[in-house]
């Protein structure tokens, strides 16, 4: 009798799990079918409830040591998830050496942040802003119990976490919070710009200026597309069916402090990690989607406008005449071979900027799927 009950219990358990597995609605990406499906780590599958939870956490200032900043403080939706500052500022006021990167299409980024060839998953990247202490961003190092307590006590978190992670003995963990934020961040995909409508067949989507700017952008004369190519406008792009690991870091001749290629000591790019001279000043090419709303530009926010950026590339490297960073970036020995300089008329420059403006996706900047849910 007891044995029969036990067998019945096991059978019911198996049927239950199978049913759960079979009938759970698969996650549907709300993206243009023309775009590839982003790669998702096997240990953090997407679900609608997880994305909802991640959105709440992304906007929750209680995830910082003094309750003053959330992820959204440096990643503001209206600014394509940048913060408009040259260098971002952490919870305690410490200034970051670098400018906050846009989170647009971050699900397609083969490597994360400006100059880190090791970081390829949002779940790992999230630990730096949460727990990093040099500089302090959210300042939660050593405060993991406070995070668990928040997850356990908040009215919405305490219901959502067991729902999102039903198989966990204790779902109220930091790793589950991080996984949820990563899942939400992966949904920030831009595919409704004028350029996307043009690609989809709407020939009126780009005006004449933008069309000519597009030709300039994809020309061998300007060379922009070598690093900012593909649907994501960066060569560090991957997706679920990508065959190769595409990663690019480039020295664009922004600095040349000692005449031997040096960048400012707090921002040497990949060199800081590898120690190889050839890695001096090498940074990742960011996506150009929504680039018009993400000023100031470059890893350190040292270019205020798109005009300034184009001027830098037209010259083939930036000349800094005086000050501690004086030097001719054009002569940086580690500069990418694609930064050769070009001559561009004022009209052509405006056309190029018109094309860059056509990459702005108003839906992404305003849609409630990515806005503050609190």
């Amino acid at each position, binding site marked *: 009798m007891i044995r029969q009950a036990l067998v019945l219990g096991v059978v019911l358990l198996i049927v239950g799990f199978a049913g759960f597995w079979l009938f759970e609605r698969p996650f549907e990406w709300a993206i243009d079918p023309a775009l590839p499906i982003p790669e998702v780590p096997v240990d953090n599958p997407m679900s609608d409830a997880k994305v909802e939870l991640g959105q709440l956490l992304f906007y929750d200032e209680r995830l910082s040591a003094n309750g003053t900043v959330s992820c959204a403080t440096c990643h503001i939706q209206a600014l394509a998830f940048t913060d408009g500052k040259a260098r971002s500022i952490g919870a305690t006021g410490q200034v970051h050496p670098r400018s906050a990167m846009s989170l647009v299409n971050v699900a397609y980024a083969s490597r994360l942040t400006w100059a880190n060839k*090791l*970081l*390829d998953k949002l779940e790992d990247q999230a630990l730096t802003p949460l727990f990093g202490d040099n500089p302090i961003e959210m300042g939660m190092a050593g405060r*993991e119990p406070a995070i668990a307590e928040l997850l356990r006590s908040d009215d919405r978190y305490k219901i959502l976490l067991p729902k999102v992670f039903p198989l966990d003995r204790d779902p109220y963990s930091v790793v589950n919070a991080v996984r949820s934020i990563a899942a939400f961040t992966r949904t920030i995909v831009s595919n409704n710009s004028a350029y996307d409508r043009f690609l989809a067949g709407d020939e009126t989507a780009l005006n004449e200026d933008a069309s000519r700017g597009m030709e300039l952008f994809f020309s061998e004369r300007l060379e922009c597309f070598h690093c900012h190519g593909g649907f994501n406008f960066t060569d560090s792009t991957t997706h679920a069916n990508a065959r190769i690991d595409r990663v690019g870091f480039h020295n664009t001749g922004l600095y040349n402090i000692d005449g031997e290629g040096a960048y400012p000591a707090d921002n*040497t790019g990949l060199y800081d*990690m*590898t*120690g190889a001279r050839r890695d001096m000043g090498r940074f990742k090419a960011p996506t150009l989607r929504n680039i018009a709303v993400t000023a100031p530009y470059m890893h350190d926010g040292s270019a205020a406008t798109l005009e300034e950026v184009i001027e830098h590339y037209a010259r083939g490297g930036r000349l800094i005449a005086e000050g501690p960073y004086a030097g001719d970036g054009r002569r940086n020995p580690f500069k990418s071979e694609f930064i050769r300089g070009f001559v561009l008329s004022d009209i052509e420059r405006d056309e190029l900027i018109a094309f860059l403006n056509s990459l702005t996706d108003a839906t992404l900047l305003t849609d409630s799927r990515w806005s503050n849910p609190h």
Partner: protein
Amino acid sequence: MIQRLLLLCVAIWAVTGCSGPEKQLRIPFVVLFDGSEIGCVPSKAGPSLSDLRFFVSAVRAIRDDGVAVDLVLQSDEQWQQADLALLDFEDGTGACDNGTPATNTVLRGTLPAGKYHGLLFTIGVPFEFNHGDPLLAAAPLDDTAMHWHWRAGYKFMRAGVRTADDGFWIHLGSTGCEGTVKNITGCHFPNRAEVLLPEFVPGDDSVAVDLAALFRGTDLLDTRATDCSSGRAERSCEAPFRALGLDFATGSVSNNQNVFLRRTGQ
């Protein structure tokens, strides 16, 4: 009866490898600056501690026959695993205000009975444990303050001193790693320091950590030089690395360290 008892004794002796019972012992650590103990609370005598936490692994004692014998640490699910311990001297007060209250300044472990003169240990996390996920790791590797997320490994040591607003700190850890996070295949600059303290008697002696020696080549009052985070561009790392016995150019052990010292008595 007596014969059988004798046989049993011989059998036990053979199985345990002639060693007899194991000895439980403590190895306390103290923090010094120019010979005086320092803490997080500022004193008039000199700089105060702003941080000191480090991982110790591969602890061995040198038996009098010259063999290095493993000192097995007691797992306590907070500070120690069998071959790895986190020592933490900062208590979150004073100049250590970015730290946490809990401290741990003693290694607790066992050695087979015998006579020992000499202690060996590594400052660092062994490669095979250094590149996992800190959120899923067992203590003490679950301490996010000791994890170096963007370098994809742990900070082996965080140490700093401060005088008023001036100070200097070092974060030591492997750099130049290859692969991707959780799939790290190797690191060009391991930066694991090796400590050998001859004549150290485990159970009787203590280890002194001399921060004055660590920062001897560093101007602690120079406001431009504030830190070393093991980055390749940081010239400020050269002196503290040398004090730890490491060649900054290669990340390997190159000379005897002079930061960790034998102190007689406990």
